[in-house]
């Protein structure tokens, strides 16, 4: 693409107020593991696998829907070095969900570890283990499977009430009512209404209806899914895995294999990205099965093709939005109807679908009526699951596309239309109370919302002039601007819980143990920052260890933008609690009352100045010197929120569109965000920049494609292309001053919101550029050109 980069400076590094208020929090501390990872020190699952581990390979279904009639492994078992071949007959017949969610899971338990039926091309059929990888691969090729091929459902628009039933098994079930009707191919369903939407729409002088079709998307974390397992000296099953949710993995594996949870340990080392793709059980059952059968360690690293074909994708959704408004732009009603494609299994089916509404509709909280509903259906495609944005990106694409259509119809500046209707601090939305995570939600007053400031600053950065949103830059080349706003959440209230344990060590440093799962995001670093800030010490005084079910306290894992807000709050509580205990212990030692002791700059001092004791000295005293008073000073605290304060973002994009080829390039993507206090502004910024590029990928480049027999055509990185360094001119991210009272040091989470706006903002920019609204994602050059040609034809027809 053309070189836009040199003409545009990177975003300025404006210092936030928070940076002046705190010593460690809101400072750009380098990640604790950064240097080690750049230097390639062994840290990822595949680097750590035991040398003598058996190599596991999987036999996979070549059919989109079939029943396994027989599996003949005799030839494979004859190969020297083959340790075992395991099939569905070797697994207890217990249905689980692979979704990494709290118990009881809002996803149907519709998956057996290995089943008699295969439901997508790539579905696992048998597990093979051998002494080396080549033998395992050879063994796979020697296994003969006899299938009864069944007709698949490949079009999610045709799944509902289709006579073909993808899940006829009697044992599958929902954990609580989620609208699960497998005989109708429905994995989940939901609807809600506040007020009377049809009445309001009928009474609205201006209405629009927009339907968008967002595609399945692949995470493409650069580290493929990997796991290894072994039996420890106590005979317990240990699984080291690239996962976002160690505790859910342990619990669900225990269920699947009918093993008590005390027999299982899950460890997450460094992982090479997740984005939701590892918020599931993925390959852990297979290595576990081999280890339990053979007693030997077992390892599996998926090929990139297997990651594409046989892990999880984003839910494909059709989102239909109807808006009703007054001629002055005040919204009266919103109706959002969604059809979601969950693929062969129902992981995250209900929750992603509900988030499409619950984390978008509250943006316009002053409507008189709002309605949300639809179905999540099964198809014989790879299972859809968790992916950053998690429904909000799909819902927002529909909503913000419709809002821009409304602005056009009203002849109004799209920015002014948002400002007229969006929510503000101190307000609430009924949607918070009604829509939760598969259940009812939690009412919430918005205590921090700086959307106004985000919009104001965003306009400034992009140069937004509603009268001049389009201009020709060369014959046949136009530049145009578009915008969108977004919200997300900070954890799942009353459901997400995290714990932290801090312990004083000799030498005056602290061990910080958290269950929270660092996917590479830097959560280990920001959690250490929170502890250091509260304790009044430096980052060097905190040593953090995370995500080991044997050694760190509980945490649901990294998803739903929960780490900063939920796990961070647990760390803050633990630090406070520890400080209290330190003061109590020292005051006892000094013979004074706790209120007579202060702790500052790693020094305990009596208020009257007569006595002092350094933290370092005390650490030795309490562990070695103080006789019967010796003790370990530690504190363990937990946090589960009663609200999920949303971060907010205002996005403004400038695109360049080649009218002869349809190619759309992002020249500058401006995003101004309110994440409360950013615990680490650099890391928050990178979360947003990274998320934005994934959203741009979804808008313009990425597509999961299948043949008409259900074979995935986009099954490697040649056929599924993520944005490269040269694809986008500039991404300009800024944070605004904000403070969330319920968050640790005023913080909200930032993990997902970056991804939400690009599909809508870019659609809106294209609409401004060529007068056509594209609704079928991604906007490849072909789609854009064909839409342009069609519009020209229509115009000529009308002339």
């Amino acid at each position: 693409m053309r070189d836009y980069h040199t003409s545009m400076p990177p975003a300025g590094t404006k210092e936030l107020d928070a940076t002046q208020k705190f010593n460690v929090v809101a400072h750009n501390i380098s990640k604790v593991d950064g240097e080690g990872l750049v230097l390639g020190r062994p840290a990822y699952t595949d680097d750590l696998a035991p040398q003598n581990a058996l190599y596991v390979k999987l036999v996979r279904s070549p059919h989109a829907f079939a029943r396994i009639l027989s599996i003949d492994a005799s030839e494979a078992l004859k190969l020297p070095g083959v340790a075992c071949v395991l099939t569905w007959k070797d697994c207890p017949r217990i249905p689980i969900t692979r979704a990494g969610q709290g118990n009881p899971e809002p996803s149907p338990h519709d998956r057996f570890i290995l089943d008699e039926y295969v439901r997508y091309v790539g579905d696992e059929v048998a597990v093979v283990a051998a002494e080396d990888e080549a033998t395992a691969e050879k063994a796979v090729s020697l296994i003969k499977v006899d299938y009864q091929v069944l007709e698949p459902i490949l079009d999610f628009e045709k799944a509902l009430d289709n006579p073909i039933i993808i899940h006829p098994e009697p044992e599958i079930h929902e954990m609580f009512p989620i609208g699960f009707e497998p005989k109708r191919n429905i994995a989940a369903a939901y609807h809600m209404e506040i007020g009377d939407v049809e009445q309001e729409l009928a009474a609205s002088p201006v209405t629009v209806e927009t339907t968008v079709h967002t595609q399945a998307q692949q995470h493409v974390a650069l580290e493929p899914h990997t796991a290894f397992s072994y039996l420890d000296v106590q005979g317990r099953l240990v699984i080291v895995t690239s996962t976002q949710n160690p505790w859910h993995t342990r619990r669900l594996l225990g269920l699947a294999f009918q093993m008590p949870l005390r027999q299982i340990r899950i460890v997450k080392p460094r992982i090479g990205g997740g984005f939701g793709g590892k918020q599931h059980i993925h390959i852990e059952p297979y290595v576990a099965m081999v280890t339990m059968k053979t007693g030997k360690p077992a390892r599996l690293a998926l090929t990139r093709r297997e990651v594409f074909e046989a892990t999880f994708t984003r839910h494909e959704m059709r989102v239909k939005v109807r808006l009703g408004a007054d001629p002055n732009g005040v919204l009266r009603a919103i109706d959002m109807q969604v059809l979601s494609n969950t693929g062969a299994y129902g992981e995250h089916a209900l929750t992603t679908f509900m988030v499409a509404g619950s984390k978008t509709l509250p943006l316009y909280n002053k409507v008189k009526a709002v309605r949300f509903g639809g179905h999540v259906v099964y198809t014989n495609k790879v299972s859809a699951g968790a992916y950053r944005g998690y429904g909000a990106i799909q819902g927002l694409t529909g909503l913000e596309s419709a809002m821009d259509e409304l602005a056009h119809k009203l002849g109004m500046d799209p920015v002014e239309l948002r400002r007229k209707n969006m929510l503000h601090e101190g307000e609430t939305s009924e949607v918070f109370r009604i829509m939760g995570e598969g259940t009812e939600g939690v009412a919430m007053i918005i205590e921090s919302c700086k959307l106004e400031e985000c919009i104001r600053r965003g306009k400034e950065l992009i140069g937004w002039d509603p009268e001049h949103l389009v201009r020709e830059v060369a014959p046949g080349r136009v530049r145009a601007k578009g915008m969108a706003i977004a919200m997300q959440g900070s954890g799942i209230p009353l459901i997400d819980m995290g714990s932290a344990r801090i312990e004083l060590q000799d030498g005056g440093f602290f061990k910080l143990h958290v269950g929270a799962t660092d996917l590479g995001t830097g959560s280990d670093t920001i959690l250490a920052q929170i502890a250091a800030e509260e304790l009044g010490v430096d980052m060097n005084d905190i040593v953090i260890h995370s995500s080991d079910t044997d050694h760190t306290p509980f945490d649901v894992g990294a998803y739903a933008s929960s780490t900063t807000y939920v796990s961070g709050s647990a760390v803050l509580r633990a630090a406070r609690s520890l400080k209290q205990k330190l003061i109590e212990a020292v005051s006892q030692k000094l013979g004074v009352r706790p209120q007579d002791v202060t702790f500052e700059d790693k020094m305990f001092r009596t208020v009257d100045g007569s006595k002092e004791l350094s933290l370092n000295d005390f650490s030795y005293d309490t562990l070695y010197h103080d006789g019967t008073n010796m003790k370990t000073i530690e504190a363990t605290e937990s946090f589960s929120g009663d609200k999920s304060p949303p971060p907010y973002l205002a996005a403004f994009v400038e695109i360049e569109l080649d009218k002869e080829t349809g190619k759309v390039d992002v020249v500058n993507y401006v995003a101004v965000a309110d994440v409360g206090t950013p615990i680490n502004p650099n890391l928050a910024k990178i979360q947003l920049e990274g998320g934005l590029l994934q959203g741009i990928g979804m808008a313009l480049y990425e597509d999961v494609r299948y043949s008409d027999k259900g074979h995935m055509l986009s099954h490697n990185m040649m056929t599924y292309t993520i944005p490269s360094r040269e694809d986008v001119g500039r991404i300009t991210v800024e944070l605004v001053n904000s403070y969330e009272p319920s968050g640790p040091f005023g913080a909200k989470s930032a993990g997902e919101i970056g991804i939400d706006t690009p599909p809508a903002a870019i659609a809106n920019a294209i609409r401004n550029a060529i007068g056509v609204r594209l609704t079928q994602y991604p906007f490849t050059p072909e789609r854009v050109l064909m839409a342009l040609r069609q519009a020209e034809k229509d115009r000529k027809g009308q002339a």
Partner: protein
Amino acid sequence: MIITLYINGKKESVECQPGEMLTEVLRRAGYVEVKKGCDTGNCGVCTVLLEGKPVLSCSYLAVRADGKHITTIQGAAKEAEEFAHFLTAEGADQCGFCAPGFALTVLAMKKEMPNPSEGEIRHYLAGNLCRCSGYEGQIRAIKKYLEADHA
């Protein structure tokens, strides 16, 4: 067959099959900083320097490397540490999976191009994909790293 590789200055005799690519051979020999990301030569995480030139080790026949000098990030540790300092100062080191290959390519770029524009930096590094960072932070880090050298 046995081949001789000079890896980070150390002479190593390694066993390999004639059809094997360099990534497998290097990882087997313990150089796990050379990563496997995509199997199709697209992502760049397997990048090593071969006689100083950045190549995809996944697409380079191991037998062809017989007698040649290979540098992994560990072999350029000092310069890599220096660059890592700038990268971590931007927070641009995220999951780290792309980092060794990417950092090596940055070091190679520094030798090959004296004063690259941003467009040239992006172009030289286009073969190093990153899914976490959005690239902007990495570019900021590289610019500062190159500027520090000229200061």
